């Protein structure tokens, strides 16, 4: 497998051009697993909740006003600002009750999970996936919500949008810049004329680590959370081809390696056909560790004989990497393209 030299190029140009060519490369038999959730309409209801850490009461109002200004109604979960254990918005059963209430509510078309930090995992066994199948809806989350995205895909066969930056921050940035989050644009369009990466005008580094083409379901999220699902019903699927997206923040290199070991040893890579690496950041208290972290990734992925694309973004640009997990994608690491198919 040949390895290209690393390049730094404006991502927007290449991914947007890929986007434009999307329609022409699409073949009829590939549309089976297309995006099935409808675009949201004016007047639809967005349900905001916290499955883990709570939010400040002061954060609620601007978020509500923002969604209203975009033409949507907003409903809030009952447990948002609690301080249970390490800052959870409520006890497990309380957070679960909020989530299931929204899932069972036919009117709610989008669930936006505002939580940061650990806390979604204990909810998984109690989620009403039957109701989610009955009333399929969009789910927007980030970070620790990796486990929810996997669960939604595996138990309800539903795709969902994983934001690679804090959801409240995305909304705040949109308010301040008079724009709106990339994922909201996607919800409005629900269109295949998008790349899985919601590229805006930013430039960031895309590196072809291993050249090649592959297709499969786009699955992924934080490495630590994917590893945390090993051995459970919510693990990375092994019965279909997968394009695996990986990212991690605030973890030391050895921990990321330990998680990758667990993923390999638990068989999570058995049907992985291609890999997309997002942002990896080790904790700031040991600057040298970041170098080890990249070395770990290179050691693991350069020799796998799978196409590997690495997208190293800066903190600010990171929400541009939000993506629809659970959809069929095609990866072409030579052309630095990831397309829905």
């Amino acid at each position, binding site marked *: 497998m040949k390895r290209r030299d690393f390049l730094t190029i404006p991502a927007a140009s290449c991914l947007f051009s890929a986007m434009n060519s999307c329609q022409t490369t699409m073949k009829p038999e590939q549309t089976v697993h297309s995006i099935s959730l409808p675009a949201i309409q004016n007047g639809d209801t967005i349900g905001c909740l916290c499955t883990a850490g709570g939010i400040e009461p002061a954060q609620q109002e601007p978020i509500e006003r923002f969604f209203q200004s975009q033409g949507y109604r907003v409903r809030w979960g009952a447990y948002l600002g609690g301080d249970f*254990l*390490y*800052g959870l918005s409520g006890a497990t059963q309380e957070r679960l009750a909020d989530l299931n209430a929204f899932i069972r509510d036919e009117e709610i078309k989008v669930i936006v999970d505002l939580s940061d*930090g*650990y*806390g979604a*995992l*204990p909810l*998984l*066994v109690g989620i009403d996936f039957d109701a989610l199948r009955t009333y399929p809806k969009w789910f927007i989350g980030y970070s620790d919500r990796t486990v929810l995205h996997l669960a939604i895909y595996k138990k309800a066969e539903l795709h969902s949008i994983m934001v690679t930056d804090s959801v409240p921050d995305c909304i705040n940035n949109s308010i301040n810049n008079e724009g709106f989050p990339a994922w909201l644009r996607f919800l409005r369009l629900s269109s295949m004329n998008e790349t899985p990466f919601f590229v805006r005008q930013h430039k960031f580094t895309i590196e072809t680590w291993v050249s090649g083409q592959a297709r499969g379901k786009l699955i992924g999220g934080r490495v630590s959370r994917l*590893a*945390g*699902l*090993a*051995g*459970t*019903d*919510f*693990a990375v699927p092994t019965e279909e081809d997968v394009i695996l997206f990986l990212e991690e923040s605030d973890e030391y*290199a*050895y921990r990321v*390696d*330990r*998680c990758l*070991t*667990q993923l390999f*040893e*638990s*068989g*999570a890579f058995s049907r992985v056909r291609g890999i997309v690496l997002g942002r990896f950041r080790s904790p700031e208290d040991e600057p040298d560790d970041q170098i*080890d972290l990249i*070395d*770990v990734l290179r*050691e693991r992925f350069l020799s796998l004989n799978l196409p590997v694309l690495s997208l190293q973004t800066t903190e600010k640009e990171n929400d541009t990497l939000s993506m629809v997990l659970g959809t069929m994608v095609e990866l072409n690491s030579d052309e630095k393209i990831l397309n829905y198919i």
Partner: protein
Amino acid sequence: MTQRFHIQPLQPGDWAALAAPAKSISPAPVEPYADLLRTKGYRVKIGENVSKKVLLDLAGTDADRIDALNMFFRDPEIRAIFCLTGGYGVTRILRHLDYAALSAHPKIICGYSDITALHVAVSVKTGLITFHSPNMDSVSRTAYTDRCWWAMLEGQLHREPMPPLPPDDDYNGPETWTDGVAEGVLLGGNLSLLAALAGTPFALPIDRDVILFLEDVGELSSRVDFMLHQLRLAGAFERVRGMMLGQFTYRKNQRRETPELLSRVLQTFCQELNIPVLANLPFGHVRNNLTLAHGARVRLDAGRKQFSYLA
């Protein structure tokens, strides 16, 4: 898996091996550790890899560490393997270890922290009892630690499973979190490593009744919560009949993090299990580190704050 209690106590003149299956001991010299064993009358072999150092401070490549450990497993002369240090690296090599050779030539294995993964893998693959004990770089921290360790090495498994600690300002003795009595195979170790084995061929076994012992060091309480739920979701608690919690040292210099918060997280989780739980036992990443016989059958009496090894 049938229990195998035929580990022979160490005798003066026996061969012992110093191993580094995870982190390198470099730049520390290995000789002082060898001397410590020699003064006890043992002959010592040292793994070729122990001072090598590669990415992530591993004591050599995976092949280096695999070869060194397998050489010890296959050597019928070697009666005990002492791990020098923990760190990280054992989970990378578990698949390549010669468990058949170890089974054919049973021997004592000592260590903790990252070595937890080795204890569990050996138990799953061979049913052998191993010793969750200080690594060589943390022995001799206190008289208590050494006393428990040597007693175990010299075969006094049943005599006094948990000698009383001398009264200490920092330690108030074991706490009954949930009353009750349970029996099972004593398995466990470092929570992070047990969680890292979930879903792999070396995960905690669920084919036998288990008394699970846990400890961890410097982890966020939220992460401890995640790992406990991860194990539960992976089914690891299916046959756990009782819990023995050692020392969970909290992550310092982090917002919110206190020993009390960590304790509340553990208690909240344990309450849901409805099994006997004995907490605050003297083992873990602390100076007084009680040696435990991993894989031995035990009877836990949480109410009486004690446990005993069963024949």
